[in-house]
Each structure stands twice: as C-alpha cells, then as structure tokens.
C-alpha cells in the first residue's frame, strides 16, 4: 500500500506548480497510470481524499487515465496492446516479447485550476 506516498508526491508537485500563480482553487488533477506501474486506482482515490485535506487541493477531483501495456514484436514489426499483464506475447503471432513501449507510466498529466485574473 504505497499509494498514499505516491499521492503525497502528487500533492507536493501540484503545490509546487501553483506556487507562482494566483490560484483560487484546484478543480482537478489528471494522472496517467500505466497498467504495469504497480499502482491501484482505488487505493489512489482513497488516499487522495486524505492527502489533500488542508491543502489547496482539498475538494478537487482526481482523474486517472489508465495506460495499457503496449509491446513491440520484432517478427511482426508491429506495436500492439496487451490484453493483460499475465502474458507478454505479441497478440498477432503469440511470440514472447520483452520490448515494452508503454505501460509503466506514473505521471501528472495536467491540473485544472481557477485563477484570479
């Protein structure tokens, strides 16, 4: 259950990003989370409420975009999405492939804020 520390990093980064701005309130934080990141969406959402209390992020919405695992198959010369993380095989030819092109993401994509003009 390391989601709380991950969410705390998010809160810290967002606070840093808005420090120079006149922000009335943060409406939403948008994350991109890879299927191979080892992070659970439910645990992130649960931790978010706790971690944002008493910060400018309190009451904001956490949106999580799930990024699927994509692998490259040298045989097919094609990149494809994996249906699950239980098997790293090209869905076309069924060969194993270790060439992972996406799915490990753990990033803050953007924030939605109300700024004082």
């Amino acid at each position, binding site marked *: *259950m*390391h989601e709380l*520390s*991950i969410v705390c*990093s*998010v809160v810290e*980064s*967002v606070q840093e*990003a808005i420090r120079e701005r006149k922000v*009335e309130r943060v*409406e939403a934080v948008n*994350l991109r989370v890879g299927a*191979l*990141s*080892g*992070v659970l969406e439910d645990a992130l959402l649960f931790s978010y409420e706790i971690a944002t209390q008493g910060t400018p992020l309190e009451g904001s919405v956490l949106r999580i975009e799930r990024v699927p695992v994509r692998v490259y198959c040298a045989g097919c010369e094609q990149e494809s999405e994996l249906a699950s*993380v*239980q*098997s*790293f*095989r090209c869905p076309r030819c069924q060969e*194993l*492939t*270790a060439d*992972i092109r996406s799915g490990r993401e*753990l*990033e*803050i*994509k*953007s*924030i*939605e*804020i*109300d*700024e*004082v*003009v």
Partner: protein
Amino acid sequence: MSARIVELRQGILKKNDVLAGDLRQRFHAAGLLAINLVSSPGAGKTTFLRGTLLELHRSGRRVAALVGDLETDNDARKLAESGAPVRQINTHGCCHLEAEMIGNHLGDWRLDDLEFLFVENVGNLVCPASFDLGEDLRVALLSVTEGEDKPLKYPTVFNSADVAMITKMDLAEACEFDRNTAHANIREIRPGVRIFETSAKTGLGMAEWLDFLNSELDRRRAGAPVSGE
C-alpha cells in the same frame, strides 16, 4: 476568475528517480555493482544474501549490504555474520525502500573501496517495484514454497527484474515444486530473463550465481553494459 488547464507532464516519482539517478552515477564512478533484492516476506532473501556475502567476502571480494525492514535489526545482525559491513535501514512502517534512504545510509562507506553493494529490500512483492534505488541489477526471488504461479500473481515486480532467483531448492521435492511451470511463468512475464535455482542452505546453484556476479562486475569494470542495462 478564469478556469484553465495547466499541462504538467511530470513523473510522480520524479524526486526518487532523480536521487536514484545520482546514486547510479556514484556507483558507476566507483566501479561497483549494485544489486537490489526484492521478494515477498519469507522467500529467503536474508539467508540467500548471507550465503552470497559469505562466499564473496571469503574469496576476497569487497562487499557491503544495506538491509531494509519495517522494524528490528535482526537481519543486519544475521548478515553481519558473513564478515561484510552491513547496515540496517528501518523504514518504520514504509513498505519499500526509496533512493533517499539508500543515500542516507551509505554514510561514511567509501564506495571506491567496494566491488559489490547489495540492498535487501523490505519483504513486499508489490511496492518496491516502483522505486528505483540506482541499482544495476534487480533480482526478484521466488521460493519453491510459494507456488509456481507467483510471477503471474505479481507481474509488476517480476517484469521489472533483471534476474529471477528460485530459492530453497532443497525443499523442491517436498513441496512438489514444478520447475518447468515456474520457469515458463517467469518467462511469460519477463521474456529472456536470467533464471537461477539455488539453495543457500545446501549451497546448490550458488557457484553459478557467484560466477554470474563476478562476470557482471568484470563487464562493469570493462565499461560494457551489465544485464540490467
């Protein structure tokens, strides 16, 4: 007042990644090989590492280890029996090690004098996967008592490993351990990964593992990429 979207496109674990990158540079500059051991609690990390340290220390290799646990220094004391310098990291509830903890515990160790630095992570097959510690090799351990499907249940950790280590092989028969299935499951999650089978108790497979470590160190010293790169 105006509503707007600000693109950040920033890694959530950026702080850890930056610190891990700094550690990796220090390790490279010192010419040492750093190895991060991850597994579930009870997979035999400490006994395996004690055996590894003992053999390397005996053969004149300069080794040191950091060991992470929520509480107690039991593991550090057990590892110190090998004769190698060992430091305990108590995370006090944190379920994984982070790069900052490694940096803080290296203390006055002269990295230039070391050839191998081992880090025994907190026993946990989920969280340590996300935290880079600046290691060259990540070794995921799986004991024969845990079942052959562990890699399928915890794909994130096994997929991030450079080496898969099957431990407690002396118990394989008693546990009706099916090695072919275990190997197939590991390869399904991490195609091409190097797999070792060992028993720190009987010494089975340890020579092959030590040969591998020494050859990886030679590669590092020669400026060639090691297995994790």
